[in-house]
């Protein structure tokens, strides 16, 4: 980017088109002429025509816009950032989270808390994990920073509940075991880019 580009701080205006609205008449005669012109052109009836046309389209051409939520739902973008999910490893079903705490650290609103411990197999075990959804701003940083692709955003945006905690228990966030086969990778924040493989530098191997 050249320096000139940087200096143009009028960001966002560049693509707007100005409508040709003509000029506003100032004299009484001018105004009268405008009224006459518009009346003769039957401008008012254009409005009526448009609404009538839309009604026909809606009623007879199946272009009704209404989505009968909650009976019908619109598909959301796969990158949508709604209530978090915790993924499992496909092979073993064990949760992916290793308890590194990066999500906890990066969280802008400080709403992730986790407990870890040393388990019987000498590994780090996440004994509890919770997100305070009263505070979460759904910024997606946690999903982006997670090295294991463990915490991701799901598509669940209906979050009215008696208890905020309803969505934030570790067990509730984890993919249910019987749904494991249907578990999808999240393509949004933090997912490897399609060119990730190309960008990796190879490490020599002694075997």
């Amino acid at each position, binding site marked *: 980017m050249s320096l000139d580009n940087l200096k143009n701080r009028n960001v966002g205006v560049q693509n707007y088109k100005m409508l040709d609205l003509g000029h506003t008449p100032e004299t009484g005669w001018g105004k009268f002429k405008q009224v006459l012109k518009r009346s003769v052109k039957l401008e008012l009836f254009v*409005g*009526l025509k*448009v609404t009538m046309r*839309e*009604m026909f*389209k809606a009623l007879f051409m199946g272009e*009704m*816009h*209404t989505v009968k939520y909650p009976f019908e739902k619109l598909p959301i973008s796969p990158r949508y950032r709604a209530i978090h999910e915790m993924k499992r490893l496909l092979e073993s079903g064990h949760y992916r989270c290793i308890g590194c705490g990066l999500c906890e650290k990066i969280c802008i609103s400080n709403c992730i808390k986790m407990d870890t411990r040393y388990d019987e197999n000498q590994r780090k075990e996440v004994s509890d994990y919770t997100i305070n959804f009263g505070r979460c701003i759904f910024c997606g940083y946690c999903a982006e920073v997670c090295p294991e692709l463990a915490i991701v955003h799901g598509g669940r945006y209906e979050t009215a509940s008696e208890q905020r905690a309803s969505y934030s228990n570790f067990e509730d966030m984890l993919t249910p075991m019987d749904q494991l086969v249907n578990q999808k990778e999240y393509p949004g924040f933090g997912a490897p880019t399609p060119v990730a493989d190309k960008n990796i530098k190879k490490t020599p191997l002694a075997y």
Partner: protein
Amino acid sequence: MDGYIIATVIKAILILAVISALAGFGTYIERKILAFMQRRLGPMHVGPFGVLQIAADGIKLFTKEDFIPSGANKIIFMVAPIITAATAFIALAAVPLLPEFTLFGVTVRPIVSDMNIGILFVIAMMGVGLYGPLLAGMAQENKWGIIGSARTAIQFLSYEVVTGLSLLAPIMMVGSLSLIDFNTYQAGGIAHWIVWTQPVAFVLFLISGFAETNRTPFDLLENEAEVISGYATEYSGMRWGMFFIGEYANMITIGFLASLVFLGGFNPLWIIPGGLAIILKVAFFFFLMLWVRAAWPHIRPDQLMWLCWKVLMPLAVINILITGLVMMA
């Protein structure tokens, strides 16, 4: 004489019942039409296609608390909506709603009272209707209410002039103030409709009719964006409902007036019997009001006044002059 009184009472009650039911139904229709024009579905969930929505609304209105602000002038506050509803229905007394028909051997004239000044009576009653919003707005001790009532005063009074003047030309042609006479005058078929001889009067009447019924684009009285609910700000429950019914009854009245005065009334149309013809015409006007609401933005108060005094009133006067000249010639 007794029979006349009983018949009149029955007619009055019937009209009251039917028109208020229609007014209710009108709200449903309005919502539906507006929704369709915006490619929405409108009410859908109460009853098939949401038709029972009116019932639901009715229940809601009836069961709502009847709220009277502490600083309000109680009696006037309570009476005002009744004025609106009452005048709207009283106006209908002089309107012949359908052609004569025979029921069980009795000839029924579906008009409560065919007085010889029918049209004047209707306009006068609608003029009195102004007191409803005016008093309501002033009685409720609310600044939006006051503004609403002020707007009522200027809007209704101004457009009363246009209504009157625009009707004057047809009256001159018919030579009677009875609406039945208007109907009879146009009995000769579509070609005899007054709209062909008085197009300007028709348009003026329609415009001022919109204004008098407080419909878009002249819904300044209770325009939400500017004055909350205007004169109805502090009203709730059935009292508010009465304003509503009054408004819808007025819409129907205007529909009848326009049909009777300009579009041949309840004269049969080709194969369509007269009764059905007038219902279709009124339905068209009702639909037109909704259609306009969906299509057009509302105007500013100053534009409203400009339109009334600088455009419509002069046009109406010129129209009367020309009519007079033509009649003299």
